């Protein structure tokens, strides 16, 4: 099969496959949406509660009504005033971590899946082992190193540190899916004169697009939610991800929960937008179009 033709076929977005029942009628009705919505409503009740508390002044636990009757936007005005730059920092660090992790992990996963590397099993076990290490252990070790290298309070430092969860995870996911890419496709590209790297970039990566997006999704979420490195590797307010910024409302004695919840709501918004965009690719399946 011509490698070029295969690529063209693979790169067209997966068409929606209507689910057919045994009788052959396509389904797409709203009843499923309603049930799906109900499932979501039950799952997301705590999220609703978070929004509820964010809209009440002095949002406290005890007598919060089911629906915010007296809506107060104090929490949001505080959050917007204090946390905007923190939100920006979080977004930059998370996206940076995605890019960095994928650039490092994708070739590595490919090598493990394709080349007969001596000790590949050992590398995989090492990756798995790394995921077992409690984060505090890594954070403490990084602090001294960062201090000597002058990487404290820097976006680059946080990107590197947040990738400690992203890179191993991406390698495991991408390894699983790159294994199922048939060798014939890559061989076809090589016969056409491409080098190993070009074959990887032009053929394998596009085929793995959906696995890459799935991995990117989780790397983003890992980096976005990181608190430990944010706390350990910053000493000033210059570079402060929102997970740490939220603590300026959580004191030893007194907590300003409306502002905390408002910050959490605001922080979720850019992430949700990115997730909705990414889901289109995840929907297509992770090895979409791979020739079986």
């Amino acid at each position, binding site marked *: 099969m011509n490698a070029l033709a295969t690529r063209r076929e693979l790169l067209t977005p997966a068409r929606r496959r209507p*689910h057919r029942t*045994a009788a052959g009628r396509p*389904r*797409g009705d*709203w*009843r499923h*949406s309603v049930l799906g*919505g109900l499932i979501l409503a039950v*799952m*997301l*009740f*705590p999220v609703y*509660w978070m929004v509820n508390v964010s809209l009440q002044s002095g949002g406290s*636990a005890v007598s*919060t009504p089911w629906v915010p009757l007296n809506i107060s936007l104090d929490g949001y005005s505080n959050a917007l005033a204090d946390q905007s730059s923190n939100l920006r920092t979080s977004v930059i660090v998370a996206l940076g971590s995605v890019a960095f992790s994928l*650039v*490092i*992990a994708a*070739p590595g996963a490919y*090598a493990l899946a394709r*080349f*007969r590397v001596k000790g590949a099993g050992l590398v995989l076990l090492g*990756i*798995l082992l790394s995921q*077992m*290490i*409690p984060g*505090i*252990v890594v954070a403490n*070790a990084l602090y001294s190193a960062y201090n000597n290298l002058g990487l404290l309070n820097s976006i680059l430092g946080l990107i*590197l540190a947040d*990738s400690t969860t992203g*890179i191993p995870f991406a390698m495991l996911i991408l390894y*699983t899916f790159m*294994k199922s890419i048939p*060798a014939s496709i890559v061989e076809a590209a*090589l*016969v056409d*004169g491409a*080098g*190993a*790297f*070009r074959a990887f970039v032009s053929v394998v990566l596009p085929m793995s697009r*959906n696995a890459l997006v799935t991995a990117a999704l*989780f790397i983003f*979420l890992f980096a976005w*939610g990181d*608190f430990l490195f944010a706390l350990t590797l910053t000493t000033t307010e210059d570079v402060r991800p*929102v*997970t740490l910024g*939220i*603590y300026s409302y959580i004191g030893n004695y007194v907590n300003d929960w409306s502002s*905390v919840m408002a910050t*959490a709501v605001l*922080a*979720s918004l850019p992430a949700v937008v990115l*997730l909705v965009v990414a*889901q289109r690719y995840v*929907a297509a*399946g992770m090895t979409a179009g791979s020739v079986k």
Partner: protein
Amino acid sequence: MADVDQSVGGGPAARRPPPRPATRRMQRLGQAMFLLPAVAYMVLFYGYPVIKNLSMSFQNYTTTTFFTGEAPWLGFDNYKAVIGSAVFDKAVLNTVLFTVGSIVGQFVIGLAIAIYFQRKFPLSGLLRSLLLLPWLIPLIVSSTIWRWILDKDSGALNRMLEGLHLVGDGPGWLTSTSLALLACVVVNIWIGIPFNVTILFGGLQDIPEELYEAAALDGATGWRSFRYITWPLLRPVTSVVLVLGVVYTIKVLDIILGLTGGGPANSTQTIATQSYQLSFVEFNFGQGAALSNILIVISLIFATFYLRATRRSVDE
């Protein structure tokens, strides 16, 4: 798995046939370059912490050590002390219950939701994205919200249960020694469902429609199509999700600390929380490191057994 045919070099230089041994070495070098950045990163960022944690567990590492750098060698004393402590047995039991309960719950519910969302209906993409919200929220916020919801007297859950007359007096979800661990498991399941749904959904999408149609023609639908088509083809994805799930769950710390602090009366104390307690509350870092190493060994044993078991079944 066929090895990629590397006998053709790249670029115009390949027109001249180069000597064989040099080409092979260069090819191997090129291949190593793919893996080198990843391995270098892992060694840099994980190598030192692992070794440090290991050596700390054999030393008398206290707050003084941080300032002076002195840590007298203790051999296995830290391990003996930790295993012999009154809390250890309970912590191990809680860890096992917590992990098994969380994984089973997350996986089963996650798979069910993923299968349900296989159908195409309006807004399914949007709903699937929103499903990721529990994982998006900072852990301090999630654990606080759940603490409020689960409060015995004024929490939303008990208010609902009492309002619907399902119970007379709301149970003490976080105050009863028999219910607290269950509450932590439920919250952890809630947080873990998005992870499972997303990966399983992607895996399910890979299974070709034609297989289901062919099976339907033979009369196999519903449960039988799940058992003979879905489940076997999902196996590699299932392995990844389960192994990673166990590895991540076994070291869960912030949720339990946020909900109950390890109480009441140590009923939610796991190995991970006890390790934190030893290191950062009692400042006995040697014992804390010993306990966290025990945790790593448990994870490793599980991962090795599980991967070996699944490799046999996948290689068919």
